[in-house]
């Protein structure tokens, strides 16, 4: 198990390095002076700051030396400086990351659990009314633009009905502490997490349903039925356990998508995470922040993939552990 995880870690590190090289090349491929790119939109930075950047990144030296300086900094989590916000990018991201992890984590668990339950329910009675309703809803959610669902949910549940807050992370100036604060945050989390989760729930539901139907046709299920086992036991212990494997593979592949979705959801709900940070950075052409968020979200996705790999191994005992 440890060797398996180590193997995956090495791979993840290589991918991260590749992304850093990619970022570096992008800065140099961008039109204009790389120092100006790093400083943000031209005009935001003064000449002294630009000159400072040039010496710091050795922009007068050959490209490979520059790449080395850039990589050395990035490995030490030096992601550059945001001239706009007057703060190191790593610090900006560090402040915002917990909110994003909370949002994406809750949305992911919610979508996976509800998606699998709905998929199992739909497959248990294929062709029934329940199946038709669940499948149709999944089809709709799968076709809906995420940011639009978020906007509409905010409009209906926050503006019109006033049931839930549709803005921010907690009530500003309320001064809640302890449990009251947690409850307040949870209330703010409901709309963003649900809207972010809907799209993915639809995917997991469809996958679970298809996978359940496929596994239930296999011979060992017939054997279990012939043995006279109860329907619910076969569903749970025989079919579901096998049908979950492709769903988990898919969930791992979708991790990056959830972070992408978080950029949109956080933008709509003013959720103070790295997605919102990226949106602000886009508007201000703050390239260091954009590249930093890109790098960190890739790192999060790799971490997430590692976790799903481990979960996969735990669920499926047939897997051999080789890197």
């Amino acid at each position: 198990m440890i060797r398996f995880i180590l193997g995956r870690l090495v791979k993840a590190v290589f991918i991260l390095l590749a992304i850093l090289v990619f970022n570096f090349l992008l800065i140099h491929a961008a039109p204009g002076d790389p120092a100006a790119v790093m400083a943000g939109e031209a005009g935001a930075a003064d000449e002294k700051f630009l000159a400072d950047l040039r010496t710091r990144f050795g922009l007068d030296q050959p490209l490979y030396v520059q790449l080395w300086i850039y990589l050395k900094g990035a490995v030490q989590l030096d992601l550059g400086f945001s001239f706009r916000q007057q703060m190191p990018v790593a610090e900006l991201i560090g402040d915002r990351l917990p909110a994003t992890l909370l949002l994406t984590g809750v949305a992911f668990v919610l979508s996976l659990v509800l998606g699998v339950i709905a998929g199992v329910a739909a497959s248990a009675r294929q062709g029934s009314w329940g199946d038709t309703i669940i499948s149709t809803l999944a089809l709709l959610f799968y076709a809906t633009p995420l940011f639009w669902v978020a906007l509409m949910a905010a409009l209906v549940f926050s503006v019109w009905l006033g049931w839930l807050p549709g803005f921010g992370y907690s009530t500003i100036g309320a001064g809640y502490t302890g449990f009251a604060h947690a409850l307040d945050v949870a209330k703010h989390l409901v709309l963003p997490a649900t809207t972010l989760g809907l799209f993915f729930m639809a995917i997991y539901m469809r996958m679970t349903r298809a996978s359940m139907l496929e596994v239930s046709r296999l011979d060992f299920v017939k054997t279990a039925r012939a043995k006279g086992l109860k329907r619910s036991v076969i569903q749970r212990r025989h079919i579901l356990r096998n049908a979950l494997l492709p769903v988990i593979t898919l969930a791992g592949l979708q991790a990056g998508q959830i972070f992408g979705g978080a950029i949109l959801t956080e933008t709509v709900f003013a959720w103070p995470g790295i997605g919102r940070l990226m949106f602000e950075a886009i508007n201000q052409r703050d390239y260091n922040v954009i590249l930093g968020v890109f790098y960190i979200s890739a790192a999060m996705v790799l971490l997430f993939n590692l976790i799903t790999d481990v979960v996969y191994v735990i669920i499926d005992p047939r897997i051999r552990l080789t890197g």
Partner: protein
Amino acid sequence: MKDFWKRFRYNRGAVIGLVILTIVVATAIAAPFVFPQSPWKMVQRPFLPPFTQDGLMLGTDALGRNVLSGLVHGAYVSLLVGLVSTIVALAIGVPVGACAGYFAGRTDDALMRFTEFFQTIPSFALAIVLLAIFQPSLTFVIIAIAIVSWPPVARLVRGEVLSLRTREFVEAATLSGLGNTQIILRHILPNALPPIIVLASLMVAQAILLESSLSFLGLGDPNIMSWGYMIGSARTVIRTAWWLSFLPGMAILLTVLALNLIGEGLNDALNPRLTRKSE
């Protein structure tokens, strides 16, 4: 062909999808004739609600622009971006997947590592990075979408080619002295076509969603009226004029839904054995 149509028609959802898509395509084609004026032009006072003024069926937006005209012109942009970016993604993914599957060994390893790299990095964030650093023009939006959406194509084609290359007709082609390129182009790829067509129809839908998300964030071509842009610009006035966000969203929803339904219908009609859809 007759058989194909029969099976496609059997899927009620697919037929509904085809009807919706036909309407959207017709709208897009008719756009310059029905609304020859630029959709950016101010025509009336702002915030005119729908169905209140003759000649302006869906009212005006925050800058007094004709909403219906925007929707109609947006249909053209959405379909164009969806279609062209999918073609570009196929142009990258098919050769990569075909080479990986056909030559196997080290070529396969190298190409698949490359594909995996692109599949692992968060695609939406990558598209944002590309468009934020280079100026977002329509061409670049299409290129960015293609860059983030080709990996599933490569994986699919690789799998198909891997299973086809050991078949007897490929051996026969090799024995008759055909070159690798000929074998791949004439004998293997035509047989791998059905699942590629299914995937492509779903990719057009995803590309439309992606384009609208990017324009919503302000990363679309600033000179082109698109559904995502309309929602993005109406976001701040959602409390007073919710329909300005609602209508373009419905347009996206219907178009994407139609494409997904068609994809499923194609899947049933073209390869009955393939029931599972992933990625």
